[in-house]
């Protein structure tokens, strides 16, 4: 937020009147300094305050206020840069009235109903005549009060560095947009169709990974079609907490859910009030980016709302849904296939931004900022961002800013990019941490990393050489290529699942029995770790503790497996299979249920039932003397449990993927991470489903053959 302080009056004790836009505040000099210090404000042009020319009230002393915590509003950048230049060239100028900039913001962002209602009227001058601490307190309050109006422009000589370029260089037209043309067309097509024909499907879900330009595309298209975008913003994020205030008043005593439903139907029915200076749009589009949290827990309620909306809603409703690695907020759950079909909901799924688009966009930004930039750097940034434009631009800004400000011009650092350069960067973890997007490794890759446990044969691990005597058997000559810690951190699965997969698949990679025994022990310890705690600290209070312990368990398993594999079998591609454990639980549950229903006379259900009663029962049944009256289902179940014939469980190869939709969206370079993500998604999904009776080998399967190659590249090309 940016304020201009204007010295209007220096009467008693050098009191200042602060005129920030429409806010006025009177305070003492020392208090002002203290305030500025508290809020980490730098004073850019320090005139000796007592010597200011008071005769001309028009001349202001601009102070640069940098507030790192609250980034400037969208669209603030442009104006700021002009005002800076003015300052730099020695002109002092009066800040723009806040209303102007505010308006400009509205134009850009589209109207947000909720925002309008929340802007706090602060037109009355705040006057304080307090002392010491209380004065500061008042100041802090005043500061908070003007924040909603934070459209007051900031000025200062180098502020532009701290306005996120992400906001500043938001694409203005569809041509600027970094999303593939086809996707934009898809959105345009849908929206124009819906806007023109009232009976078409009204709901659309735009999904895709973060930073793939979903929101940008939607709002640009809407503007191009002369539609007003009304965005839902969760009400809690807008209300300001005041001490002693009853929260219920603030949200009118209603819960988010009601507000949300209300919002949907009202925005759909009424247009916004004609406010002067704002162009009235022909159509309205409702945009929902954050679905209220309560609805994640009750998808059914959400579905009901959607059903209602599809019947009575008027304007198109667009959900922007970010795909996340964790399945908790899954699209799957909120928009199940059946519902999509029922309500005829359109799904437009965005892909991660292709790196060539990213490079182009970032270079454009650099040109606009007139900062010379190395194309290699931009390319590397694009590669590391994993198709996340926001992340890439942030990184770009960060690295450029840093480079400029650092006094000692050491080698300009380059972020680790693809696999090849990542290896070099491993020597400097600090850089890779800063630069790389905090990405997750999907299950499939993580498994590969642990199971193959590749070691760098060219290096000799010095730490291991210290081991002597008893420990000598634990010495490994070459260091691991992958850091186990890293795998644990990034694997996007729960310890439990991961452990299941590891256990299922590790034997194929082991050549010696001793190694296997030690690996098995590590797995067992890991399993013991995660489960044992459940007994010890039940209840919510122990959640945090449990989390740590789960991490530990994961670490033990991963490290143990990587360490134990001393005599690796000749590495080659190995099919990975789904763990049978989860399947097993299901089988057990089902059969106990059937038998329980059938054998009511047998009191209680104890282990003896399965080890004694059922096997003998089955024996009697097989003799074919049907002196029992049993339902066929129960009879089958008993025979199944009691008699051993054939195998009930089978290892099923991971059904790697269905056809991956990429095609024209991916230009020449094509990121393989995309493919990998698809793999991971497929792996996660079928967990609960019963295994099919598939042959063990993948040879006949065309997909399998394809994956074969894929994995091979993944694991061996470095």
């Amino acid at each position: 937020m940016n304020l201009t302080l204007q010295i209007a009056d220096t009467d008693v004790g050098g009191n200042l009147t602060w005129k920030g836009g429409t806010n006025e505040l009177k305070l003492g000099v020392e208090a002002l300094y203290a305030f500025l210090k508290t809020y980490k404000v730098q004073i850019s042009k320090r005139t000796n305050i007592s010597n200011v020319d008071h005769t001309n009230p028009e001349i202001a002393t601009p102070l640069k206020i940098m507030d790192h915590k609250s980034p400037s509003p969208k669209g603030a950048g442009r104006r700021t840069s002009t005002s800076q230049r003015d300052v730099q060239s020695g002109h002092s100028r009066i800040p723009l009235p806040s209303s102007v900039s505010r308006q400009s913001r509205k134009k850009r962002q589209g109207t947000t109903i909720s925002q309008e209602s929340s802007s706090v009227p602060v037109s009355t001058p705040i006057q304080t005549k307090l002392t010491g601490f209380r004065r500061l307190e008042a100041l802090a309050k005043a500061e908070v009060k003007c924040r909603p109006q934070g459209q007051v422009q900031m000025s200062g000589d180098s502020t532009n560095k701290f306005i996120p370029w992400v906001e500043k260089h938001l694409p203005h037209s569809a041509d600027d947009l970094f999303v593939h043309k086809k996707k934009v067309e898809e959105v345009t097509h849908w929206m124009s169709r819906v806007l023109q024909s009232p009976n078409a499907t009204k709901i659309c879900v735009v999904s895709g990974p973060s930073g793939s330009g979903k929101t940008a595309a939607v709002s640009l298209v809407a503007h191009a079609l002369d539609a007003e975008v009304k965005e839902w913003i969760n009400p809690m994020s807008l209300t300001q907490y005041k001490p002693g205030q009853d929260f219920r008043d603030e949200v009118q005593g209603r819960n988010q859910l009601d507000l949300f439903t209300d919002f949907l139907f009202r925005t759909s029915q009424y247009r916004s009030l004609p406010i002067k200076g704002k162009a009235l749009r022909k159509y309205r589009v409702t945009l929902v980016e954050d679905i209220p949290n309560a609805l994640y827990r009750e998808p059914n309620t959400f579905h009901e709302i959607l059903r209602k909306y599809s019947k009575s809603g008027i304007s198109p409703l667009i959900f922007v849904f970010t795909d996340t690695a964790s399945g908790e907020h899954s699209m799957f759950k909120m928009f199940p296939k059946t519902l999509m079909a029922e309500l005829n909901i359109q799904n437009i799924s965005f892909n991660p931004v292709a790196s060539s688009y990213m490079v182009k966009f970032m270079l454009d930004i650099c040109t606009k900022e007139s900062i010379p930039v190395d194309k290699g750097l931009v390319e590397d940034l694009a590669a590391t961002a994993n198709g996340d434009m926001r992340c890439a631009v942030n990184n770009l800004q960060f690295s450029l800013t840093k480079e400029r400000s650092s006094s000692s011009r050491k080698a300009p650092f380059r972020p680790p990019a693809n696999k090849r350069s990542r290896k070099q960067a491993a020597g400097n973890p600090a850089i890779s941490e800063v630069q790389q997007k905090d990405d997750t490794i999907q299950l499939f890759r993580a498994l590969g990393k642990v199971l193959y446990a590749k070691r760098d044969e060219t290096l000799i691990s010095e730490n291991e050489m210290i081991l002597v005597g008893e420990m000598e058997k634990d010495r490994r000559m070459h260091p691991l290529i992958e850091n186990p810690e890293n795998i644990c951190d990034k694997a996007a699965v729960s310890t439990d699942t991961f452990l299941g997969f590891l256990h299922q698949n590790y034997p194929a990679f082991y050549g010696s029995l001793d190694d296997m025994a030690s690996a098995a022990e590590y797995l067992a310890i890991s399993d013991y770790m995660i489960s044992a705690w459940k007994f010890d600290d039940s209840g919510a209070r122990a959640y945090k503790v449990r989390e740590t312990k789960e991490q530990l368990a994961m670490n033990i398993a991963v490290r143990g497996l990587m360490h134990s594999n001393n005599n690796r079998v000749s590495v080659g591609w190995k099919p990975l299979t789904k763990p049978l454990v989860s399947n097993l639980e299901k089988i057990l549950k089902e059969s106990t249920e059937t038998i329980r229903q059938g054998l009511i006379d047998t009191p209680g259900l104890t282990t003896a039932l399965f080890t004694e009663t059922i096997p003998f029962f089955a024996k009697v049944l097989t003799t074919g003397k049907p002196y029992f009256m049993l339902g066929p289902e129960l009879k089958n179940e008993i025979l199944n449990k009691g008699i051993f014939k054939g195998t009930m469980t089978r290892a099923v190869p991971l059904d790697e993927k269905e056809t991956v939709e990429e095609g024209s969206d991916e230009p020449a370079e094509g990121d393989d991470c995309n493919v990998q993500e698809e793999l991971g998604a497929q792996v996660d999904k079928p967990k609960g489903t019963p295994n099919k009776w598939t042959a063990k080998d993948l040879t006949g399967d065309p997909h399998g053959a394809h994956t074969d190659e894929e994995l091979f590249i993944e694991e061996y090309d470095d």
Partner: protein
Amino acid sequence: MSMWVDKYRPRSLDELDYHKDMAQNLKHLVKSPDFPHLLVYGPSGAGKKTRIAAILRELYGPGADRVRIQRQAFDTPSKKKIEITTYSSNYHIEVNPSEVGFQDRVVVQELIKHVAETHPLDQHPFKVIVLQEVDRLSKDAQDALRRTMEKYISSCRLILCALSTSRVTPAIQSRCLPLRVAAPSKNQIVKVLQIVSKKEGIIMPLELADRISDSADGNLRRAILMLESCRAEKYPFVDKQPIVEPDWEKYLRETAFIIVQEQSPQRLLLVRERLYELLCHCIPADLIFRGLLKELVKNCDNQLKAEVCAEAARCQWRSTRGSKTIIHIEEFVAKFMAIYKRFIEQAMMADDFDD
């Protein structure tokens, strides 16, 4: 129609075939105004449940026999729903809390609270809650049980059923009247078998009864089941009538044989498949451990035996606390293979040296 085990199960304390002294004592106990909590323990197939049912009948009359089966749901503190099957009459409720795994604490607490809140019908001063397999309760649940036991003593009594007292906390033991149901002796088993065959109208040679009771190893349920399946297999009985045994035991023995036969990673995979098979047939892990160990140590010398047993103990203990039993059984097999292989190699080297 039911199997002989259920068909000829004694219904009242008077009908019990052995431990008659205890039956008399129980009768007095039921008549006395002060009925304590009971902890009934003893090996599998000794007749614990039969005695509990008889006590209930003695307490409440035939009404206790009319049992209905119900699913009851409870909420955990973290709002997760857990379901458990209960067998209840108007006077008592029977449940096996270990069915819900580590959430058993909730079941124990909520169930008792639920039952104890309402007073029993008729003139009976209390209801009875029968908890099965108390020795498999988690520590949490046992602690919870201790508190609830005291709190609701005015309106309900507990009858706990366990294999042994070693895994029941002393706190609970001291609050109950322990009742040990010893395994029947061989003669007692033979006698019961004779009674059953007489009632069923079949002729059973004494030699067969002896062999069955030998192989039943003090487990009466098993003995009667064996008798019945023998009868189904071949009747009239012949000399050297084969005794039927459960498939899984045979399968487990074969698995042990496979382990001893060859030790290699591939073999371990094969064993894993068989272990899954066993688990799929609802065979509990500790029985698998026990069965494997029993067979495997037959191939070891004394020093090795100690080592193998230690490994088995360690793995089995972990498996009781872990969630994926297969991992632990497999660990044991892998450990055994490694140990055994080393042993064989050393023996061979020693042989070479001798030559």
